């Protein structure tokens, strides 16, 4: 029985071909047996390959793989997994995954696919950090998670658009056009 708050062993996103999009294995120093067999990238890769074989078909939601509990969710061309110890409460893990997944849907405006994830990696990584901290579930309310993820803002040195700048732009366009028309004839 797990009496600690460390409940998540790993978070893994695979694409539908079994390639790793990103995965985070939590160390769990006080419980080394939890990460046994997942210690180095090679073992992790093998684990993911095997896992993908079992989870590539959608509709299962949950499976016991390699002595670990894996809760997963398909989203277009991606599969999100949360890995936990096999004696963990299934609903607890599933709640955490749903929270993450719902928050990601909010952040990516429901376009949760591989390209969108890679283009908005900063949001995805922060979202994960707000959901799970080193194996501890930090938050399960998707709205809260999404609200805690900051979006990059334009650099302050960027162009300021106001009446004046629009006017000058118009002037430039006008000049260029006149030149072109003149040259054309």
């Amino acid at each position, binding site marked *: 029985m797990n009496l600690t708050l460390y409940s998540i062993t790993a978070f893994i996103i695979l694409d539908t071909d079994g390639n790793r999009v990103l995965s985070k294995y939590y160390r769990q120093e006080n419980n080394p047996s939890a990460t046994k067999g997942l210690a180095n990238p090679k073992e992790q890769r093998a684990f993911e390959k095997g896992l993908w074989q079992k989870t590539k078909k959608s509709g299962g*939601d949950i499976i016991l793989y390699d002595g670990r509990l894996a809760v997963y969710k398909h989203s277009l061309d991606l599969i999100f997994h949360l890995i936990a110890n096999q004696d963990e409460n299934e609903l607890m893990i599933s709640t955490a995954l749903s929270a993450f997944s719902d928050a990601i849907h909010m952040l990516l405006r429901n376009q949760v696919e591989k390209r969108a994830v*890679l283009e908005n990696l900063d949001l995805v990584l922060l979202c994960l950090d707000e959901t799970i901290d080193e194996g501890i579930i930090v938050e399960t309310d998707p709205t809260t998670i999404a609200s805690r993820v900051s979006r990059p803002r334009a650099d302050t040195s960027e162009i300021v658009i106001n009446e004046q700048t629009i006017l000058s732009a118009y002037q430039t366009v006008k000049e260029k056009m006149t030149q072109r028309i003149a040259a054309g004839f």
Partner: protein
Amino acid sequence: MAFASKKDDEGLSAYYNNKTTVIQEARVFNDSPISPRKCRALLTRIVHLLYVGESFSAQEATTLFFGTTKLFQHKDSALRQMVYLTIKELAGTAEDVIMVTSSIMKDMQPNSEVIYRPNSIRALCRIIDPSMAQGFERFFKAAIVDKTPSISSAALVSSYHLFPNAKDVVKRWANEAQEAVNSKSSTSLFGSSASGGYLTAWGGSAGQQTSGYQAVPSTSYITQYHALGLLYLIRQQDRMAITKMIQQLGGGKTGAGTTLKNPMALCMLIRYAAKVLEEDPNVQKQMLDLLDGWLKHKSDMVNLEAARVICEIKNVPTFQLMRAIGVLQLFLSSPKATLRFAATRILAALAVTHPSNVASVNVDLENLIGDANRSVATYAITTLLKTGNEASVDRLMKQISGFMSDISDEFKVIVVDAIRSLCLKFPDKHAAMLSFLSGVLRDEGGYDFKRAVVEAIFEMVKFISACKEQALSHLCEFIEDCEFTKLSVRILHLLGIEGPKAPQPTKYIRFIYNRVVLENATVRAAAVGSLAKFGLNSNDSGLKKSINTLLNRCLDDVDDEVRDRAAMYLRMFKECLLADAYVKEESVFSLDVLESKLVSYVNDPSASATPFDASSIPKISRAQAAADSARPSSLETVGFPSKKEVTPTPQLSAVETQSAFIQQLKEVPELATYGEVLGSSKPAQLTESETEYQVTCVKHIFAEHVVFQFNVSNTIPDTVLEQVAVVMQLSAETSLTEDFIIPLPSLSAATSPGIVYVSFTRDSPEEYASGSFQCVLKFVSKEVDPSTGEPEEDGYEDEYQLEEVELGAGDYIIPTYVTFSSEWDRLRGGASATETFSLSAMESLKAACDSIIEILNMQALGGTEDPASTTVHTLQLAGMVVGAGGSGKALVRCRMTHSKTQGVTLELSVRAEKEGACGLIVSAIGG
């Protein structure tokens, strides 16, 4: 590179995944002015690199880490949040991370109402040295009770990570954690009762916000989960405190009064309750009531946790178990796969111990056989197989056959194991099951799966004689086309043993000889051995002749092992004596004894002058050997992982401990003339475990002597004990005469434990002498001079009173394993005795069983040591009674009844191969 996609986004991944580029581009951290957008993008790439399996060297990580810290100059909150994630990820590999503490501290201050304040708190625990925790105490205490859940949670999680290294400091935060458990901050944000003061604070802080960050209040109350986790961590050594905490937070009998709103926090509380319940039987009733209340909680997660815990409690009252099963039954029809999975998993594990109770949900389970989630279907099937009755077996088998092809090998193994136990439960149904097994044997599958099937068939051959012939022919067919050498060899071996006993042995020979023609060398060798057994065990001279011809052909084999075997067996055909010794022999060496003797032979250089003497090694029958090596079927442990890990206690079998003692005793010249040790007891403690001198006693029974072996430990480092002896005083007249004491010349802490032997002669070896001895440890104590390490000249004599040593019936008995019913019948004509006792002092049948087993030192058979009923029980025991004229089996049947007023009434029946044994056993219980 670990991450490589061949699809259109290859360019994108490559861009994100080049470590060298990223390190080079880290220059942007030094740009002035800093571009938050660019920097955040680069930080993202650093973290992503780590998340796809790349790793940085300490040097690289340190460079990146300190580059990152430059970004603290910029106030952009989107950038800062990413900085904190990067710091967390790099802190493990980078060096001198402690340097950024002050920068982080600034962001943690309560006056900074920024989005990244929780991030800074969570990053802090990664970079500080545990010894610094003290300095943050005031800050953490304030943050834990902060009104904003995300800050409070962050502080709690951070403390949780710190705890293992800074226990003493974090322990002082218990009051704050307690406050956080009870806090209602989440409600106050929504509730109409929100305090004015808080609203002002909220408005005020909003005004200060520079980043425009608006905290969205959490509805999850998850802070309670973190606070409860930390509280438990702080108090876990103190069971009273934990019990009190559970009572306070449990919210009374209905569970309605609890302040805990977060379901995950309640799940943790349930686990703590289960732990307390397991350790302290006094609170069992109270905890069970609480658990029962949680079964009715509105959250599925809490119901599930409570049900799981109840199902795992040993000896849980049936009505409570049934209520838990009722909750799980509702989950079985849930649309959520996760819930169905969880429920079936618990039920499948429970079916091992309580099949009849689980049977009540069989109807619901049958609906799940076709479940889309294959794991759910498999758990349902295996549970049904365990709980089903004989009538439903055929139907189930049909359903399984349809479903075997589309489940994974792991699950196939689980199903096959379930069927294997079913075969033994309903032997009448063997035909259906055998045809099922032979069917799946033909399916595609890996080694583990095929092995499971083959082992299941082996077991049927062994236990269900009616299906033996059928099963063997299925196996013959299987080896015709078997890709696994190991399995072929095992099957050929089995054919060699079972085949010759079959009515028509000749029909197997074709299959076996085919192997000789078609297979690899290992299988050919096994086939030769198998063939020879047919010839040697048969009385049919025609058959012998044909086998001879076949073996002669094998003499031309290309492999030397095959040729050698063929030659050896051909020789045996000519010399019957050889055949008797090597093929028909029904006994085998006791392997543990053989091993220990061989090891001592190899270690002793002088022994190699003479050949190894195998005749001194006791032999046991094949059946006995099989029983010794029998391990609990994998079925109970495989496939039901929700069951707690059963760590097999390394219980040495009687034979193994015996062989260890034989080794020790052989080294004592004075005891060499006593002959073989007939039996040795388990070590008994004669002192408290914390005393200065620790003594355990082992009793060895010889044909005409009893030797007491005292293992003495001296735990005082600066003294040496000399002339250590144990003086034994018989408390009553028995037929034992003391021979001699072999004292220890000297014993220090380093040489402990040492052994003192005391030998007695059994005046009349046919009697089983018993009695108790008062023991005193006598020695001369000398101080050790610390400068020289030598003991000083003068010492003083001292005595040390030990507990009494009992010599009783159990010392003459060695537990042994037999099949009770057949052995009981066999001994019908032998010596027997029956007596009735009234054990009024016994509180329960379990207590009676335990003490009978302890007194008699016999093996309980068939799980009868755990009474299923509280009123009537039959305990079956077997043992070997050792004596001068060889040892003999003794079986005991204890029929017991229990009532509150009279205690336990016991009818003891003994059947034994020797007359004296009955008397010994009856008097042991009577006395």
